[in-house]
């Protein structure tokens, strides 16, 4: 069934290993220890890791392969979320119809937007998607949430109310579920000082990620994927080779839009609320950051990038001054205060600054992202005396 090359199979197995054991791997520190601050193995964050991983993997199919930089992909995520919540409101909390509708709607939306935006390329394309994203946000935030026609519930976010019809609900659970299996059910396994949380919702997301990742590998290795890479490299040649680049980019756009819709639907399935901020252009910017940070055009890069940024957003932002003080409390007072004073610009509420700096450093020094960094370190460790022969570099960039 898995007709993958050996390397790809290995990659899939590694990703599967890490995703399935994430609840353990991400919780390296005992619950009561001071380092527990850095544990990321709780359901909500793990869900976000994989959901945004899916989002970024999809975005990478467009950006990484064809080089078209879209600043509007958050719109599809938002549309997917809205579609899913509407399914919860109208049918029941079962996530299956919600997931289907969110992918379909996002796909249709992407088809329309792609059809228009892809008539231009380069920076013009980016600005067009930016304009579309801002328009969608404005429409969702207020135009479509007026009292007479409330499709999005504006600032508050679309959510399920007790008096919603939910025609198919019957006696079913009143929380999101997959044929009765509730998303929020969590088994906590205590081993010594550690507590590991195995959450149903997380594993559903993880399975979706693995499927999405598998599909992405297939696309990367397919003739279709090859054509997309060719578009990035040289559109003129592509056209004179008898290939029509338009449908290729459009399909890539729609596929990545559907990935975003899937991510949006999952987000709503884990937490049945859809807010308009999800559609803002800065949210699109975030997925761009993820993809670049991890490594655009590589298979695992986007997942790494998504994990990295979500970790920052959720863990670094929680390190406040009193936490800092407790870390350095052994130092003399003056020194302690000085260190805390410096650090507090970078953690807690200053996490955006750290992220911005980190991102700049990656773009400047590691154009291939974290994956590139990893490859360089690997090569450096493996062959310290024989620095990068040309063939090696050539191989690396095509294999990934």
């Amino acid at each position, binding site marked *: 069934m898995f*007709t993958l090359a050996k390397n790809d199979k290995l990659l899939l197995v590694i990703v599967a290993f890490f995703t399935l054991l994430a609840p353990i791997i991400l919780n390296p520190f005992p619950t009561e220890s001071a380092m527990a601050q850095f544990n990321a193995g709780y359901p909500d964050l793990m869900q976000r890791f994989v959901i945004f991983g899916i989002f970024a993997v999809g975005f990478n199919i467009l950006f990484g392969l064809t080089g078209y930089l879209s600043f509007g992909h958050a719109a599809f995520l938002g549309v997917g979320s809205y579609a899913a919540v509407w399914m919860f409101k109208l049918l029941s909390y079962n996530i299956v119809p919600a997931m289907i509708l969110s992918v379909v709607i996002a796909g249709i939306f992407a088809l329309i937007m792609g059809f228009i935006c892809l008539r231009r390329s380069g920076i013009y394309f980016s600005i067009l998607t930016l304009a579309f994203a801002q328009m969608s946000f404005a429409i969702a935030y207020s135009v479509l949430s007026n009292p007479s026609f409330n499709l999005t519930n504006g600032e508050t976010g679309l959510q399920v109310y007790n008096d919603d019809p939910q025609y198919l609900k019957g006696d079913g659970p009143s929380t999101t579920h997959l044929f009765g299996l509730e998303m929020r059910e969590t088994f906590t396994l205590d081993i010594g000082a550690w507590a590991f949380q195995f959450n149903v919702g997380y594993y559903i997301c993880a399975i979706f990620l693995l499927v999405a990742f598998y599909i992405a590998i297939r696309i990367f290795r397919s003739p279709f994927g090859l054509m997309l*890479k060719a578009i990035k*490299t040289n559109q003129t040649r592509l056209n004179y080779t*008898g*290939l029509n680049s338009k449908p290729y980019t459009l399909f890539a756009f729609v596929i990545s839009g559907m990935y975003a819709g899937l991510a949006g639907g999952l987000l709503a399935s884990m937490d049945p609320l859809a807010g308009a901020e999800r559609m803002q252009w800065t949210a699109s910017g975030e997925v761009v950051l993820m993809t670049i940070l991890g490594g655009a055009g590589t298979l695992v890069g986007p997942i790494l990038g998504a994990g990295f940024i979500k970790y920052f957003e959720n863990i670094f932002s929680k390190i406040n001054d009193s936490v800092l003080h407790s870390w350095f409390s052994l130092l003399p007072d003056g020194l302690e205060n000085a260190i805390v004073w410096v650090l507090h610009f970078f953690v807690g509420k200053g996490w955006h600054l750290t992220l911005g700096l980190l991102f700049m450093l990656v773009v400047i020094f590691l154009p291939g992202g974290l994956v590139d960094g990893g490859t360089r370190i690997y090569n450096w460790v493996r062959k310290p005396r024989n620095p990068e022969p040309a063939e090696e570099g050539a191989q690396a960039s095509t294999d990934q």
Partner: protein
Amino acid sequence: MGILEVSNVNKNFGGLKALHNVNLDIEEGTIHAIIGPNGAGKSTLLNCFIGKLVPDTGTVNFNGQSLLGIKPHQINQAGVSRVFQTPEIFMDLTVLDNVMISCFAKRDGAFSFNAWASVAQQTDIREKAEKMLEDVNMADKSKMLSGSLSRGDKRRLEMAMCLSQDPKLLLLDEPTAGMARADTNNTIELLADIHEKTKITKVVIEHDMHVVFSLAQKISVLAQGTVIAEDLPENIKGNAKVQEAYLGGAH
């Protein structure tokens, strides 16, 4: 009836007459060179063949089908391949991938949503591409990134990409421009060799006389937007009008 028929083509840019009543008839299976001094209108004419420019009047027919105003990929799918002045290849991909893309375009048409199959398992395409690379003596470089090839090899690769599609007509736009003498000779040999094997019709636009006279079976001379002569190579050499155009012109 030739394979490519150009009749009464006129093209003006503002007040400038770029092409004036150009008539050409390219015979199937020949190498036909179009020469002329700088600014004679060679590039404009070529652009009319490939849909980039639409002439003000006149027709360009390939196998009876008009080429005017249609998209590059349609022209290619109709059987016209093009080699550029500076090699246009997929620099970020391997040599083998480059040729395979051409083969896919030949097999699957302008678009095919073939996203589930694996490139590695398309054995027919791979074998065809490998065979093609062997034909142009590049089999040993198939795993290299094409961007890292020498200029001569890039040209060779571009040629391989075009030939792998079995075109009916091959347009070559100054195929040896900017090449060292050795590379130029290699390219001439390659072209001659290919022509020996495939007999594909070729239109070469060139101003290197050495290349033209080593290859062409027929030559059209363009000057100031008009065809001033069309004849066999040996006759062109002695043509007074041609000499005047070259000596009285830029050189």
